[in-house]
């Protein structure tokens, strides 16, 4: 299918497989405050990627995190990234939801992202737990998890410096036909599972797009792909494309948050905002 993907792109007159253009995001659905028990929670859908996040805290440090971070003056963030066993659309099942290396790595990266936006010095010797549950996977799940975690923190009322927003950019096909016409040459944003599986590389970027004009601030870059290496000459374009996507997502989430706050003073189960 090496050539097929490229052909498909041409056949669709520059549209992607699912009918989007290169820089278009998937439909985003936001719901905040879905759990009564948690201090903050959010449910986020980007296309068919669906993620639930609950935030507990700040509270007194407990468990291993407390012991390890005992000397720290600032607060501790504890992240748990878990993927539901049924989350794959392709029908296969994940063996265990968490504890494998990938999940641990993602937890760690998520913690870094959260640390960069939470003002930890406000919470000395306290702990904030962020539990991420991936319910359904259709590409870009780590980025969506970060977005959802940000929303959950907002819902929990924890002050943050800025939205931490994740967005992927994927080279569907790494052909180097230096074709300026093809908008896909710079990569497509918000990749679906199918696009992530294509031979090109996928770049996941977590950015704080609103904090300043300097978009590169607070950047976490995670590259992934089907065993592919990303050629250095394409990194810049790909990164810009992803940052563009981050800004778009931020605007959408920001609107959703504001709407949520104006309409509901109390978190409620019954409403679902649909904002695209």
């Amino acid at each position: 299918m090496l050539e097929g993907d490229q052909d498909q792109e041409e056949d669709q007159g520059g549209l992607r497989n699912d009918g989007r253009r290169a820089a278009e995001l998937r439909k985003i659905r936001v719901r905040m405050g879905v759990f009564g028990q948690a201090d903050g929670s959010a449910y986020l859908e980007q296309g068919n990627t669906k993620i639930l996040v609950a935030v507990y805290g700040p509270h007194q440090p407990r468990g291993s995190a407390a012991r390890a971070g005992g000397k720290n003056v600032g607060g501790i963030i504890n992240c748990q990234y878990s993927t539901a066993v049924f989350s794959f659309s392709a029908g296969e099942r994940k063996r265990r939801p968490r504890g494998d290396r990938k999940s641990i790595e993602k937890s760690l990266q998520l913690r870094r992202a959260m640390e960069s936006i939470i003002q930890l010095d406000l919470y000395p010797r306290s702990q904030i737990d962020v539990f991420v549950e991936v319910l359904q996977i259709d590409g870009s799940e780590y980025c969506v998890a970060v977005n959802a975690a940000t929303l959950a923190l907002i819902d929990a009322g924890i002050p943050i410096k800025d939205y931490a927003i994740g967005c992927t950019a994927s080279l569907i096909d790494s052909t180097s036909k230096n074709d300026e016409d093809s908008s896909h040459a710079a990569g497509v944003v918000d990749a679906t599972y199918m696009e992530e599986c294509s031979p090109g590389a996928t770049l996941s970027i977590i950015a704080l797009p609103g904090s300043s004009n300097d978009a590169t601030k607070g950047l976490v870059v995670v590259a992934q792909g089907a065993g592919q290496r990303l050629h250095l000459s394409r990194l810049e374009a790909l990164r810009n494309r992803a940052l563009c996507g981050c800004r778009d997502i931020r605007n959408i989430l920001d609107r959703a948050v504001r709407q949520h706050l104006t309409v509901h003073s109390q978190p409620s189960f019954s409403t679902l905002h649909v904002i695209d």
Partner: protein
Amino acid sequence: MLTTKTFFRKTKRGNIFKIVREHYLRDDIWCGSELCNKCLHKNRDVILSNENPGAKSSSFPFPYYLVLDTNIVLDQINILEENTLCNVIIVQTVLEEVRHRSSNVYKKLKDIIGDPKRKFYIFINEHHKETYIEREPGEKVNDRNDRAIRVATKWYNKHLGLSQTRKEDKHNIKVILLTDDTNNKELAVKDGLYAATMQEYVSSLEDGTLLLDKLCKQSYALEGENKEPLFPLHRTPAELHEGIKRGKLLQGTFLASRENFLEGSVNVEGFEKFVLVQGRVGLNRAVDGDIVALELLSEDQWSAPSDIVLQDEEEDPGDILEEEKELIKQKSIPSTEKTPTGIIVGIIRRKWRQYCGILQPSSVKGNTRHLFVPAERKIPKVRIETRQSETLSKQRIIVAIDSWPRNSRYPLGHFVRALGNIGDKETENEVLLLEHDVPHSRFSDAVLSFLPKLPWVITESDVAQRVDLRHLDICSVDPPGCTDIDDALHCRDLENGNLEVGVHIADVSHFIRPGTALDDEAALRATTVYLVDKRIDMVPELLSSNLCSLRGNEERFAFSCIWEMDHDANVIEKKFCKSIIRSRQAMTYEEAQLKIDDKTQKDAIAFSLRRLNELAKKLKKRRMDNGALVLASPEIRFQVDSETHDPIDVEAKKLRETNAMVEEFMLLANITVAQKIVAEFPECAMLRRHPEPPQTNFEPLIKAGKHQGFIINTNSGKELAKSLEEAQKRDNPYFNTMLRILATRCMMQAVYFVSGMLHPNEFYHYGLACPIYTHFTSPIRRYADVIVHRLLAVSISADATYPDLLDKRKNHALCHNLNYRNRMAQYAGRASVALNTHLFFREKVQNEEGYILFVRKNALQILIPKYGLEGTLYLSKKGETSAVNFIYDEEDHSQKCGNIVFHSFDPVTVQLSLDRSNVQHEKLVFKLVKPEIPGFSIPDQNTESVADQPTTPKVRGKRKSNQNQKQSRSSKKK
């Protein structure tokens, strides 16, 4: 707007997955018509014009656009390729269906769409808000797609209608759906659409008669009625699938036999031997190359390949099957000879392409039905309909097969185009190139635009980036008349007593930049193809014969590989650099040889050549000791008349010491570069390997050796080389060469590959007996070398890298193409030699000494060393009862007649003449002269008529004749 696509997919294991995907519908997809004033399209996306959009048709007397159904594109692609049809809308549904069904047609369709004159517009109906439709419950996928096409047509009519109301009906363009599916057409008419079949449409066109010939034929009307179908039914795809899954049926590629049209074999994966299929029922309409499903017969019904040579020579006998006596009357075959036999029960995938050939002369004048005889013997004759048989009967034509109904003895097809008159050199060459799929059209303007502008000068910055080697006494040694000189050599003394040896290769990668149209074209062509009188260049001539060619006394860019060696040819140090060189002299092998031998010559070049020659001998010896094989293949060269390009003399090629000298250093350079790039790029280096052949391949060689009392040991390359070396016969000096020819035929093809795709153990080059090898030395005529140059340039930081160069998979796909083109180029070269051999023997009858290479059941395979020619001497012919009876001994592989016995390798004298009775396959006829067998051999009439021909005033067209030779050097190199 959003909808989801949900579908179920079954995996190979039988698991069923549910797949859910999003499917976005848009309102910004435009119609692409000039007429439209509602769509907001950019100018370059407006493709369909509003003035005279369609060809004049009697059934549609108004301007119109066409919408095509999938079956039209798949079957009638040859009509679409004609320029008559313009302003056509291809809906995405159709495009995708075509892509899944036939990559070949898809490629052609994309070419047509890419041609701005044709005005083909792709309408993305599947993502359009108004034309997307859901599959209804119970609706088949095909029906849903047909409906989607109709909905799109309807939408167009409405859309254009709205745009046109304001324009006072000036244009009033309608949209017509072309479909060959009767059901679809009926439904379309019911919906109030204009619809027609291709046949209706083409016959209604004003100038459509020629197009009618190209109509695809799907049905075949019987002349007589109520006849039994000739062939058994093919099973349905579902049955085949089930059968294969359960292991009842086997899947494989069908290979027709070249010698016997009622026989073929199927290459089944996992089977060591090919599965034999015999007879019309057994073959059941399979055509060479098809992927078929086959049922294995029980062991008692197995049979052996018949040794007879059988050709379908009859006139059209109507649709009866003659009794297949020849095959049926097989005697009881010894069970050891029996091979697995099967019958074909279904076709999984047709691999039909277009075939070159001629019309079979028809006895009835004015008939529109004709039989077409393909040039390739493996392909059956084809029924076609044409109204131009008068003119076409003298021409070579191309025909496509459309279908093969059960009641027709031959497949049905249609005429595609004519190539030219039979017998014209140009036409024959064209046939040859087409049959071997050699891209040979003129270089397009886009490609030429990337050539450097003349006059080309070396600038200051060029000098700064390169090592200046203009002071070295470099020279090149090539076959006479060679214009694409890609290698040059030098050798000089160093102060420490060692030698410095340099190989300088044309720096083609400097001119061919990655990603340009020039690069794409070169990658597609992959290799320069050498025919006897013609060269099909891989890169445009300006590069191949001028700017890249290392001509004498001109400053050129080179990629140099320089070694420091001691006098025993041990490499002490090596380095690579991009350089500027000035070759002192471009020599031929002969000139170089003379220079080496002539002791009075004492200039720098003579010195360097002598040193190189000495080193080469040492290198060669070392290589031989390692177990490198010396293989032989009968090769000849033609002396070609410079005016008419007709061959006037044939001779076997001579090899001089200097040939070996150049070859030795090229091998060394290739190996050195291979080591370097694989060290730098373990994942993506492009290398060449020559796999060790399986032992079964050697069987004929071992057998042949045994009959002559020699034991050929094939356990390893080294042992094989040793046994071949020892198998000498005093009374038959050519014996050893023949043995080597046989050994060559046991070998596998050497192939390019990407290092990351294989285990390092598999890099081995069997023929050269070296663990790693690549091609670096001929970038002008091989694309693989260009890639290797780029890799090497990156590794010495002389050039920038680019993504594709390091992409393992891309390179793997590229290797596939290179290997395919290489093989085809080789075959084309051989076919060209055969063609010229025939031209040479056209007016001659000649006696020649020859040897028996193989003994077959009804024939002897004869090799004539003088011409490197191989042919068949038939001992008995079908239907003829000869006065002389030969007795075939299968054990001994010999033919016996009276007290004369023919064994392999026995010398014979044969008379050669050209049989021109079959225009398509002129063939050389071998007749036995010696040993004499009364009633069979012919008297030894001295061929004085030939000997008397003047030999001196030949104007020898050396330039062209020798291109052939150059290639052979490379082919030996493997």
